[in-house]
């Protein structure tokens, strides 16, 4: 039926004078966009399949390709946008929930971009990180202030289990299954090399990666995929995933197409079945139940590993975090509504949850008002895009950040938002062997190291500019931030003053 026709989102511009018909684009495109036309002896494209992942563009030896937004449009309408209209056409023909991938692309305020960082002038000196020590080492875990001494007066360490990070950045949860083996290997090796941690997500831990255990956070999600005693004890910390910023209120989605033999073994589920985690944990219907799961995991790991509770940033996040901080968790991870995902219903991704900046500020303030900020460390993600975002997050009160989208970008992701299709041309979010091998973990892990190293340099430069030579003196140091273009309510929630004040 003609009303089912949806015009292609992208237009592929091929400079036929440059095209040498080498057919690289055809071979590279898992979406089967490009094709050689024997009759006309030229390359042609089926643009309806194009996701604008740039794989063909990047590999075209003669730079003959460009992909642009298709200028074809509906009659202009600020209310009924072309996305809204085409989504209705799709649902009218399929009766399905629309899926997409990666973070919320809507134009909600990005508060990171409305916060400005301070620097020293005259009354105190800035510090040059190239010439003076500049420390970013971070410990995560609960802190107790009760000093215990032995009979000689020496302090006895009574610290809860801690995580030590060389810099306050960790790779956020992305499961093996949603990501390829090579992507996971890149993350694990980079984390080890950098002295930080990566996170298994809810897909279990491939046996090849147990060797990176001391740099691994193992996740326990509502589907319990891949969870067993050895798995729990393999990591440096255990994370209970209560929620995810991209899809608060619902569980994970991994299409059956991505459940290959290896993934099925790691997840402990049959090959080819959709892995749909339940929306809640069915043993956690309230805060008192959370404590029981935390204690179970602590018992299973001999009280040697901190337990992280990850929640999505939702309206009541401060009260929820306060409850978690009293529940026995060591670390709270909060995921903002722009956080990425391998697959989420579009409506949920685009409409549920709140920005991480506001959630972080509200949680940090609440925990301090209640005097329990040191019961837990705070880790925030969704979305952290640069070292400046990290500096701002820590100044608002975070102990560390989770990054995932940025890490995938470092591996070659072009944010085409079709991870759920399993046909990632960059070898990241796919299980197809021919595609997976496109991501060389040797290159991938080095690029991740480069990214974090670069960000760490930038963090140090900004800290030095503020006259701060250790990251803990930045934590919660909101005087170092000023808002720009924010209203009083936003400033109050963020706990910062306006620029010029």
């Amino acid at each position, binding site marked *: 039926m003609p009303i089912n026709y949806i015009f292609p989102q992208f237009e592929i511009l091929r400079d036929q004078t440059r095209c040498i018909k080498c057919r690289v684009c055809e071979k590279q495109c898992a979406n089967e966009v490009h094709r050689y036309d024997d009759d006309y002896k030229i390359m042609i494209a089926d643009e309806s399949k194009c996701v604008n992942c740039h794989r063909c563009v990047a590999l075209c030896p003669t730079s003959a390709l460009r992909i642009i937004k298709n200028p074809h449009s509906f009659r202009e309408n600020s209310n009924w946008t072309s996305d809204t209209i085409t989504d209705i056409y799709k649902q009218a023909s399929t009766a399905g929930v629309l899926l997409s991938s990666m973070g919320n692309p809507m134009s909600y305020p990005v508060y990171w971009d409305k916060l400005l960082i301070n620097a*020293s002038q005259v*009354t*105190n*000196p800035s*510090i040059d990180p190239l010439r*003076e*020590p500049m*420390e970013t*080492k971070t*410990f995560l875990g609960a*802190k*107790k*202030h009760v*000093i215990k001494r032995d009979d000689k007066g*020496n*302090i006895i*360490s009574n*610290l809860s289990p*801690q995580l030590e990070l060389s810099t306050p950045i960790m790779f956020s949860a992305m499961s093996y299954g949603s990501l390829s083996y090579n992507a996971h290997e890149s993350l694990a090796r980079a984390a080890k090399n950098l002295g930080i941690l990566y996170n298994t997500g809810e897909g279990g831990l491939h046996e090849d990666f147990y060797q990176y255990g001391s740099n691994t956070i193992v996740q326990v999600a509502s589907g319990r995929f891949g969870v067993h005693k050895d798995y729990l004890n393999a990591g440096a910390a255990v994370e209970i995933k209560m929620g995810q910023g991209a899809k608060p209120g619902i569980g994970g989605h991994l299409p059956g197409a991505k459940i290959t033999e290896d993934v099925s073994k790691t997840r402990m589920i049959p090959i080819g079945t959709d892995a749909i985690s339940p929306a809640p944990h069915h043993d956690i219907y309230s805060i008192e139940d959370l404590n029981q799961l935390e204690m179970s995991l602590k018992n299973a790991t001999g009280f040697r590993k901190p337990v992280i509770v990850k929640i999505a940033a939702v309206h009541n996040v401060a009260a929820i975090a306060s409850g978690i901080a009293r529940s026995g968790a060591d670390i709270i991870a909060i995921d903002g509504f722009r956080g990425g995902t391998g697959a989420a219903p579009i409506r949920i991704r685009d409409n549920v949850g709140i920005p991480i900046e506001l959630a972080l500020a509200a949680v940090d303030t609440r925990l*301090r008002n209640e*005097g329990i*900020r*040191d019961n837990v460390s705070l880790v925030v993600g969704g979305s952290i895009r640069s070292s400046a975002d990290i500096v701002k997050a820590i100044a608002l*009160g975070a102990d560390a950040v989770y990054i995932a989208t940025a890490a995938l970008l470092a591996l070659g992701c072009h944010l085409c938002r079709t991870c759920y299709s399993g046909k990632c041309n960059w070898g990241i979010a796919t299980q197809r062997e021919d595609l997976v091998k496109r991501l060389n973990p040797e290159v991938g892990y080095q690029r991740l190291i480069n990214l974090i190293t670069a960000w760490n340099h930038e963090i140090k430069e900004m800290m030095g500019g*503020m*006259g*701060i*030579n*250790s990251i*803990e*003196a*930045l*934590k*919660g*140091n*909101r*005087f*170092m931030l000023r808002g720009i273009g924010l209203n009083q309510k936003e400033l109050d929630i963020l706990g910062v*003053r306006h620029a010029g004040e």
Partner: protein
Amino acid sequence: MLREGKDNYRIPSGCAICGIFNKDGRRISGSSIISAIEIMHARSNGLGGGFAGYGIYPEYKDYYAFHVFYDDDRAKVACEEYLNSHFDIVNLSRIPTRKHPKITNEPLIFRYFVMPKTADLISSQLDEQEYTSSCVTAINWDIEGAYVFSSGKDMGVFKAVGYPEDVGSFYRLDEYEAYCWTAHGRYPTNTPGWWGGAHPFSLLDCSIVHNGEISSYDANRRYIEMFGYKCSLLTDTEVIAYILDFLIRKTGLTYEEAANVIAAPFWTTIDRKEQQEREKLTYLRNTFASLLITGPFSIIVGFKGGIMALNDRLKLRSMIVGEKDDTVYISSEESAIRKICKDLDRVYSPRGGEPVIYTLSGGGTNAY
């Protein structure tokens, strides 16, 4: 009262600091500390000066000596009503001052020797010091126009808006005798001219003079406020005083351990230590991470029976120590020490983050 901190603005300042400590407990008049701080005149700008003396009230040494600024009689009446209901007052008087042409706009300045009312103390379930400090906080926070600026035993703080040598003369410090004196000349970028903003800043027996501007201020402030402190003045010195009170009096760290928290050694330094020392330093730095102070500072902390001098860990402010027989001199500049003691046994410049602690030979340090 033109009080600082009220409009939520923070005032950075540079400064001169100075201290004299007699290890043998010999008490000396305030003349020499005034003479020492005077030579560093150029390090102040006339917007604040002050002194702390230890051992000055031997006849009342078991009582808390409250020094209070009042804007007016109304504030005095309200404060005295509060004091009467919480303490037994054994002596009250104006603090003697001498008219000085450069010290003007003085508030009413009163002194009370007090002891918590026994019944109230017991029913509060607090120890004597906690009870007293919470009362001081309550007065400073709740009674408009009243400000307790000294609340220790057998010690006192004297401060005003003006150059320190004029402030010393104004308070007639030549007539007091102490085994430990500290002094401060303030160079704030701006101030409404509030007397309470001058140093030393004190809580119970612990007093602080401070030179510098800390870059960790809001991290420290927001952390320490979790433990019932209210940073109402928005000065670095106030937050440092609360941090020390928290670490030493409430948590039970020694002064040296507290120094290892606020001016913690770099991780590379810690990593080079012997195992036991390494574990201790790591524990302290990790547990009290939010109390690390960064940015330039030099401080002299006076406490019962002792004195501590400490620089930030990069030593971004000058501070020098001189020793002569049983006397220790600490100063921003050596000139101040040479002014009052030409012939020193030893002069040295403490390294950044290295606490210099002297206590009375008879013991009694850390005796909170």
